[in-house]
């Protein structure tokens, strides 16, 4: 008998241990995935924050400028300034590349050397020339980006798209210290581009910012006001029940359906400009409205009844109770909810694809009506391109987005900890 009991007990303890192991497995699965996930993104993306640049000695002296002007005719008659204004920077770059590789006699090598330097080198030099007019009549050492192929080779040692002699030239330059790795400021200050080496996230950051402003303008007042209506003013009636049910239901509708709604209502019906931040913000406002409403309602509910009762006993009306007491007391909770709502809206992609935010946009938007793109959509666009140069940019953009989201969430947690009241 005792044996039987002991056997049974052993069996039960084994089951207990197994159950516990399953729990540990589940938790460690989640944590492991999180670690692998973050690790992969950081591993793939961290190199995009650096970029390799090559030193070019650009000749801005009179002779060279005359030689490289766009103006072909009457070059002798024109003044120096006129020629300098019409300088061909492409030619200038080619000249300095030729000089740099003058030791190689083979014209083929010179030809491939042109491809080491990024296609937009002339634009970079033009910009630094315009910013520093004192460059004229001197030779200047300017660092410009190498082309994406070379950048990928230097970062990841993938040389499939390079010829052998090109590789040896590059290795030579690196040894001489004429190709160096710099922090990639351009990633944060330049917009999207077809060339991966100079594509940046500034336009999409700005677009995200504009979209969030529109989102807040619409979602915040509406969300907070309807939460107060539902909690404090609404009496039991069919209409109010309908409002309650529809708001709860809105929270569970797939986000892409809001995109279709934005497409038909804002683009087709109201004729607002496609892929503008105003449409994006309004679409996101509809999508995230329930989040703000639910957060605000929870905050209002947590305020003790005694405050309301006391105000009412002193003769305050409903409006006075809400404006003078409930609203100020619930501000911290509303703020926390709003920040979380913003972080939700910041990462939303699917509905924005529906309102046309997939176009290639090279300029950052100047107002709410201009076509713009947002950070997650930029990630989606870059993730589609096959070049390796864009793959690292995608991961880097994801890192930036995740940093923002984590910062928002931390801020919300701190806010909650700091202002949370235990009634």
């Amino acid at each position, binding site marked *: 008998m005792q044996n039987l009991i002991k056997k049974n007990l052993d069996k*039960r*303890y084994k*089951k*207990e241990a197994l*159950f*516990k192991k*399953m*729990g540990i497995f*589940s938790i460690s*699965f*989640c*944590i492991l995935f*999180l670690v692998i*996930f973050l690790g*992969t*993104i950081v591993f*793939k993306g961290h190199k995009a924050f650096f970029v390799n640049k090559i030193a070019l000695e650009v000749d801005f002296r009179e002779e060279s400028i005359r030689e490289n002007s766009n103006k072909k005719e009457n070059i002798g008659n024109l003044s120096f300034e006129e020629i300098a204004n019409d300088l061909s920077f492409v030619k200038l770059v080619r000249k300095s590349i030729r000089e740099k590789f003058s030791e190689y006699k083979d014209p083929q090598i010179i030809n491939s050397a042109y491809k080491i330097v990024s296609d937009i080198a002339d634009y970079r030099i033009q910009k630094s020339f315009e910013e520093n007019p004192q460059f004229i009549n001197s030779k200047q050492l300017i660092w410009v980006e190498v082309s994406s192929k070379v950048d990928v080779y230097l970062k990841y040692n993938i040389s499939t798209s390079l010829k052998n002699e090109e590789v040896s030239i590059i290795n030579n330059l690196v040894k001489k210290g004429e190709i160096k790795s710099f922090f990639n400021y351009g990633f944060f200050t330049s917009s999207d581009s077809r060339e991966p080496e100079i594509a940046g996230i500034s336009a999409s950051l700005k677009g995200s910012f504009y979209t969030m402003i529109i989102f807040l303008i619409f979602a915040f*007042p509406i969300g907070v*006001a*309807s939460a107060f*209506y*539902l909690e404090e003013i*609404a009496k039991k009636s069919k209409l109010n029940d*309908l*409002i309650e049910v*529809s*708001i709860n*239901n*809105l929270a*569970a*509708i*797939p*986000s*892409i*359906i*809001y*995109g*279709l*709604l934005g*497409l*038909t209502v804002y683009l*087709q019906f109201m004729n607002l400009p496609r892929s503008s931040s105003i449409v994006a913000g309004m679409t996101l406002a*509809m999508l995230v409205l*329930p989040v703000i409403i639910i957060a605000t309602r929870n905050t209002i509910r947590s305020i003790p009844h005694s405050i309301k009762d006391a105000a009412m006993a002193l003769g305050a*009306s409903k*409006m006075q109770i*809400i404006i003078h007491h409930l609203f100020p007391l619930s501000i911290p909770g509303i703020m926390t909810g709003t920040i979380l709502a913003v972080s939700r809206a*910041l*990462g939303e*992609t699917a509905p924005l*694809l529906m309102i046309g935010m*997939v176009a290639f946009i090279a300029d950052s938007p100047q107002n709410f009506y201009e076509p713009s793109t947002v950070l*997650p959509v930029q990630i*989606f666009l870059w*993730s589609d391109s096959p070049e390796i140069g864009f793959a690292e940019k*995608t991961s880097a953009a*994801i890192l930036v987005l*995740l940093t923002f*989201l*984590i910062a928002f969430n931390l801020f919300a947690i701190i806010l909650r900890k700091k202002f949370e009241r235990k009634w």
Partner: protein
Amino acid sequence: MLIVSLIFLAIFSFLLSSRLNKERVELTRSGYKRSSLNAHYIYSFIIWSILLIMIVIFSSFSNFEKYLSLFFLIFTNFLLISYFFKQGFNAKAHLESIFGASLFLTAAIGIIITFAITLSIVFESIRFFEMVHVKEFIFGLKWNPQMAMHSEQSVSESAFGMVPVMMGTLLITFIAIAISLPIGIMAAIYLSFYVKSKTRDVLKPLIEILAGVPTVVYGYFAVIAISPIFKEIFSYFSIDIAAESALAAGFVMGIMIIPFVLSLTDDALNSVPGHLKDSALALGSTKSEMIRKVVLIAAAPNIAGAAILAFSRAIGETMIVAMAAGLVAKLSFNPLDSVTTATAQIVSLLIGDQEFNSPKTLAAFALALVLFIITFAFNILALVVVRKYKRY
């Protein structure tokens, strides 16, 4: 224009307040009383004036007419309010009703959005069903909308049968549920019963990071990491797996839903009354027996509700499948195959320039209608399950 009208407003509010102050003194001297403060009259003056200003500014008057009518309207408003003050009008109650009405209007936006969604999707779908028969859409076994690129092209060349798309959706959803439900529920149980509260405070936010990650990031992760890993593993056993397999998309989607399941299950477990747990333990059951035979059964309706919500969430998930699942609709139940989903189809149909008259574009709305109906039904089902089978 705005500045001028605000200046008007400020001047008249000031005049009104000084006038009301004077009159109130006289009134009190002669024994009358007003239930509202002067401030209430001024507030109602300001609110009505702002409304008038808005109407004037957005009207189609010329500039001169606008200034004139602004001045005139604000002045009339001023006179009216001072007249009402003498008549004993209760401005406080008036403000109160304005306040209530405006809050009601904002809350009604919730209904408006619901109706707008329903209407827009239903109308576009009706236009689609004028071109493609409903029967063909629901029971058709072929989905190939890309044929009808232009509206002139005959519809008969392309196929609009939603069965393969829906099957693909269900396949990926089932994979996601098969991963997220057991792991989410076990993790919730472990966190609420086996872990000290300090460890729990660390672990739970860590897992909730997964909930905050945007889905586009999950999609990218599925493409660059999970799909290659699965390919590697299966090719080691020399099994063929598609590059955009349903398994990889479903796996990542399952992980995305884990925090959702976890927090819902957590709530369900916490709502089980303590005396049930204590009595189970007092009768000599082990912890796992207590959990399996008492707590889980008591919380079953809520957990079932959570499962249904997770299901509807997985069906509506877009970015992961748009990036990691295929676009070719295949009637296949093999998780190693590449299948497509309704949301992925909507994205691929509506991306880029659309003509609103082509069946290709409208097909997306029909799919959205199906999605909407399914998720709506599931949300209601979850509510009903939780309400009907609640045991305590």
